[in-house]
């Protein structure tokens, strides 16, 4: 597989505020890659750097093995062969659907243009709407037109900037599916920025979590769950609890929930204080042992309850339980872990 | 890229202009006139000139000082051959800026009395504009009037109408008084006159005349051709108003009534000097003089040419023989005096 996008130690500051710090990643051709992160983490800025609207202060950007930007020089956006789906779509209000899609096809002759437009109209199921104006379309239709416009010139890379942030929740999953289908049908390579976990996991071949201008991890989606490389990845994915533990003489991490084999035990020595990531689903109530936790909240979540309890050391633990447990109830919690897990040093 | 092309195009156009401007010179005989006399008043006589000589006249009209400023800025490149103004002071000013040149012409020197042309023959008066006192025939006994100075007498308290000090005719009138009476005397006079105002100065000379007719004031100072214009207007209201007005010639026992001229000068940059001189001489001819003055209701500057019958009805008068160059010299002095007197 060839590489379509390669970022090498990108740094960017805006008005003396660091926005991006040492970002490196690659996107392979034909893949959909997702950048996940809360708003303000710098992920949209990264897209603007890749598109060429901003210039990095350090690092290099390669698109299809061509250097398009480094500290000294930058290829202008129109010469990067990059398409973008904007957050607010940025459809040209004075052009029809067909004209919007044709807009970037000025290098083709009329026949080829028509051919490509027809192809895309079919792909986005808008043949009947080709002569309508954007304000005559529904939100979802606009979305597809915007994507078709970005895809039309067959860019090397398509950037999607939170494409569904303004769409109703109910519609999102359907649109995500449509967009994914369109991208795959056209064999596009895409870098998709979002703050929605569901959206990211629904589309991503490769995935990363950004926080405070740093890329915490860049890997396959399942690796994020199974092998998080940073406690903040766990916090962001919110699938596991970070429990304060101590390393015992066997290199295991130990707390009142039990003792756990560590994947990265070489990093620690006996007596180190660590945070260990324990999946919410691994935690259960042990009726027979002494109480180590107090329930502080319990929420019904379709068939089971998500229970929050505090351990005696103050750590909050979330886990699932078949039955409701009343607030204030004392319980004993244990964790059952089948494979080595990760711990992180506490500062 | 596009803007680059634009710059190139502009440069090309300028270059073409330079070359074309250099070539296209030979043309029909013409003379270019800057005139502060309004088009309606000057155009007919210029058309007559063209008809008589075949020389085309190009005209642009405007305010005197704006035209002088334009001449100054254009310098030697100015297309203007001739400057026509309605005030000797402005001709003096143009001369003092070095914008005019002398014209040695016997025809002009014999036709135009010395007082009404520049001592060095830089400019020549074409018609005389007298500024007498006008009064309401039914309310004022002309024997009560004497001269400009006596308008400050107590009997005229609240009865004098005159236009604003911004106006050149008043500036020239005051300048002529400064020339004969001195600054201090005129300053006192101006203060006295302001004290006698019937109203704050508004409008032009016609408005002062109308105000006399309407009874707002008893006496006004105005140029005669405005009264002439009202009598000729064909508008019954204006006619009715004008007929209530009498003309009094002030200062007949001393220096004479204040007169100004509409005048003409050949510019220093003139490219068609010969044609310009032809125009000047044409304007000084007997028939033109008579026609030019009669159309505008002014007095011919050339001695022996009869004025319009209406003007004759108001009687002959003694003119202030002051050389009109003085009006230009003393103009700013006059303005300052009026400012200080609080003459709006």
């Amino acid at each position, binding site marked *: 597989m060839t590489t379509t996008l390669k970022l090498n130690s990108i740094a960017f500051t805006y008005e003396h505020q660091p926005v991006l710090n040492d970002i490196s990643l690659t996107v392979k051709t034909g893949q959909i890659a997702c950048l996940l992160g809360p708003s303000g983490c710098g992920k949209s800025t990264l897209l603007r750097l890749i598109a060429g609207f901003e210039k990095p202060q350090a690092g290099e950007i390669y698109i299809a093995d061509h250097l398009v930007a480094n500290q000294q020089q930058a290829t202008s956006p129109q010469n990067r062969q990059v398409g973008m789906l904007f957050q607010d779509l*940025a459809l040209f209000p004075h052009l029809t659907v067909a004209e919007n899609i044709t807009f970037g096809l000025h290098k083709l002759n009329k026949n080829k243009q028509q051919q490509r437009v027809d192809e895309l109209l079919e792909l986005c199921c808008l043949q009947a709407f080709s002569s309508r104006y954007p304000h005559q379309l529904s939100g979802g239709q606009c979305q597809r037109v915007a994507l078709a416009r970005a895809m039309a010139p067959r860019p090397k890379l398509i950037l999607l900037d939170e494409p569904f942030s303004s769409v109703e929740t109910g519609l999102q999953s359907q649109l995500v599916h449509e967009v994914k289908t369109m991208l795959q049908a056209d064999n596009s390579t895409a870098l998709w920025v979002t703050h929605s976990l569901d959206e990211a996991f629904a589309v991503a071949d490769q995935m990363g979590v950004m926080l405070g201008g740093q890329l915490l991890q860049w890997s396959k989606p399942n690796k994020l769950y199974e092998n998080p490389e940073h406690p903040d990845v766990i916090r962001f994915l919110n699938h596991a609890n970070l429990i304060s533990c101590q390393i015992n003489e066997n290199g295991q991490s130990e707390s009142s929930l039990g003792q756990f084999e560590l994947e990265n035990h070489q990093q620690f020595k006996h007596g180190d204080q660590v945070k260990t990531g324990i999946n919410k689903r691994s935690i259960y109530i042990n009726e027979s042992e002494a109480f180590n936790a107090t329930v502080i909240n319990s929420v019904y979540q379709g068939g089971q309850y998500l229970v929050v309890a505090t351990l005696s050391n103050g750590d909050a633990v979330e886990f699932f339980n078949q039955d409701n447990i009343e607030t204030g109830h004392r319980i004993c919690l244990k964790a059952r872990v089948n494979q080595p897990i990760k711990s992180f040093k506490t500062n | 890229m596009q803007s680059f092309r634009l710059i190139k195009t502009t440069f090309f156009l300028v270059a073409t202009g330079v070359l074309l401007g250099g070539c296209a010179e030979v043309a029909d005989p013409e003379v270019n006139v800057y005139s502060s006399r309004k088009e309606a008043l000057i155009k007919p006589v210029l058309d007559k000139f063209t008809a008589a000589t075949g020389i085309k006249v*190009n005209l642009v009209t*405007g305010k005197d000082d704006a035209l002088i*400023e334009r001449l100054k800025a254009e310098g030697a490149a100015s297309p203007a051959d001739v400057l026509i103004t309605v005030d000797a002071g402005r001709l003096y000013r143009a001369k003092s800026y070095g914008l005019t040149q002398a014209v040695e012409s016997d025809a002009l020197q014999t036709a135009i009395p010395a007082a009404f042309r520049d001592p060095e023959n830089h400019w020549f008066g074409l018609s005389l504009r007298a500024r007498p006192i006008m009064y309401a025939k039914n309310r004022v006994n002309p024997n009560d009037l004497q001269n400009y100075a006596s308008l400050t007498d107590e009997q005229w308290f609240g009865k004098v109408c005159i236009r604003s000090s911004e106006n050149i005719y008043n500036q020239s009138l005051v300048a002529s008084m400064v020339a004969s009476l001195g600054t201090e005397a005129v300053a006192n006079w101006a203060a006295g006159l302001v004290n006698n105002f019937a109203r704050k100065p508004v409008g032009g000379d016609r408005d002062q005349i109308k105000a006399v007719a309407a009874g707002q004031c008893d006496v006004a100072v105005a140029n005669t051709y405005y009264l002439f214009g009202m009598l000729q207007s064909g508008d019954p209201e204006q006619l009715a108003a004008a007929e209530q007005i009498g003309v009094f010639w002030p200062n007949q026992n001393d220096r004479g009534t204040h007169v100004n001229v509409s005048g003409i000068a050949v510019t220093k940059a003139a490219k068609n000097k010969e044609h310009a001189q032809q125009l000047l001489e044409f304007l000084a001819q007997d028939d033109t003089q008579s026609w030019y003055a009669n159309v505008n209701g002014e007095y011919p500057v050339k001695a022996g040419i009869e004025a319009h019958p209406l003007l004759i009805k108001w009687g002959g008068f003694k003119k202030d023989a002051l050389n009109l160059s003085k009006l230009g010299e003393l103009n700013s002095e006059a303005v300052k005096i009026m400012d200080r007197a609080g003459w709006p």
Partner: protein
Amino acid sequence: MNQQPHHSHKLIWLLALFFGLPFFALLLKLLTPEAAIWLHLIDTVLPTYLTQSLLLLFWVAWGTLIIGVSTAWLIASYSFPGHRYYQWLLILPMSMPAYIVAYAFTWWLDVAGPLQSALRAMSGWSFNDYYFPNIRSFGGAVLVLTLVLYPYVYLLARASFQQQSKRLLEAHQLSGGKPKTFFYRIALPLARPAIFGGLALVMMETLADYGTVQYFGVNTLTTGILKTWFGLASLSGAAQIACILLVMVILIMLLEKVWRGQSKYDVANSSIQSHVKPALSGHKRWLASFWCLSIITLGFFLPLLLLFIMALKSQISNWWHEFFAVTIDTLWVAGLAALLTVTTALLLMYVKRSSQQRSLHRLIQAMSLGYAIPGLVIAVGVTIAFGWLDQVYNWIRTYFSDAPAALLFNGGFLALITAYVMRFLAVAIQPLDAAYQSIKTNLDEASLLTGKNNAQTFRHIHLPLLKSSMWTAMLLVFVDLLKELPATLVLRPFNFNTLAVKAYELASDERLADAAIPALSIVAVGVIPVLLLNQRINAAHDNNA
């Protein structure tokens, strides 16, 4: 936004140099010390000029505010007899040059005018037996300027009121507010930026007015400029007074920025808005109707009628022959100058959008100062500056030929149109700036990403989206140009006249009846673009809704 250096930025500096030269010429004059004249001025007339200018500004601002906002509110919110017609009739006074309304009112109301003469004839009174307000006074100037300038406030306030969502009124009522207080507590504050935008235009027009104040004998700073230049033969002194004027204008611009800046509301309505306006009840509807009718009558129909009567008394019999050519000349010069003004404004706004350089933004702001400088002062600056350029030109020319020196820059349409563009650039910038700001920058980015360059983006995205505002700007400038007098008077080439010049010459020759004919022509050609303008603004509103 883009890494490529914009050639258009270089062009802007070139343009600024070109348009800046006349300002520079005035500045040089400014630096010539005129201590004696200043002492004299401060001692005598300057305080009057200053206070009269400030008072005029104050009263005209209040007058236009009250008339403009009240009519805009009535039209935007209620239905009452005739409201459909008033909606467009109310902007007609815009086509009336203030000085022409002044001529008409003076002719009618003066001591010797038909009204007072008839009064005296009927009652047998003589002048001192009755009181009659004097139109040629400070109050008269305020009245006339207010009547012709209020449409600026009306237009902008109306558009703003109409864009406010109905929901606001509903929310106001739900939170227990009385319908009456809605105007003061919600609608007015929301429309404030628009109202001040209009008011700033009014104030600049007022400061730059010469024709009206001169005719009415009101001594403002513009009168001072002329009197110092002409009477005291001191152009430097005049330029220095002009500088006071300029400072006042900059203050107004800053004030507008402060007023506007604190309140950048987005008043765009949320899609649905019913156009059914509540009907006013009982006597209120007639009161509203009467109020609008009186304004229109005073500002448009009465002056128009008076001009007609005056024209009938005119001695000019073959007026068609006299004025047809002048009308054509006026139209083509105004059209060409409007086109160039809008093009320049477009270029400036494009650069403003594509550059983050502060210096460029300031430069652009400075270039719109011309609106408040009296046309005459601009004309002087242009004359002097172009005089320099002509000297350079002639110096080069001597290499090519030995023909006598000639003019390239001065004395032709170049000088005249340059002055026009300088003076009215701000008028074109206003709508274009607003329109440009409403085009989101990511449309540009979307276009660039498809491989189009800046010029193509400008042509295919900006131009189509700005088209409507460009028309608005064109019409606004065109109407202003039809009325322009002082700069035309000073700069026009040989054998060229405009209607305004004709009207002025005849009027200053005290032939008001004759002046009425070109005056009527100005109104006749001015009404059409004004009506088109109204239509555009309404259409824009319908599109938004």
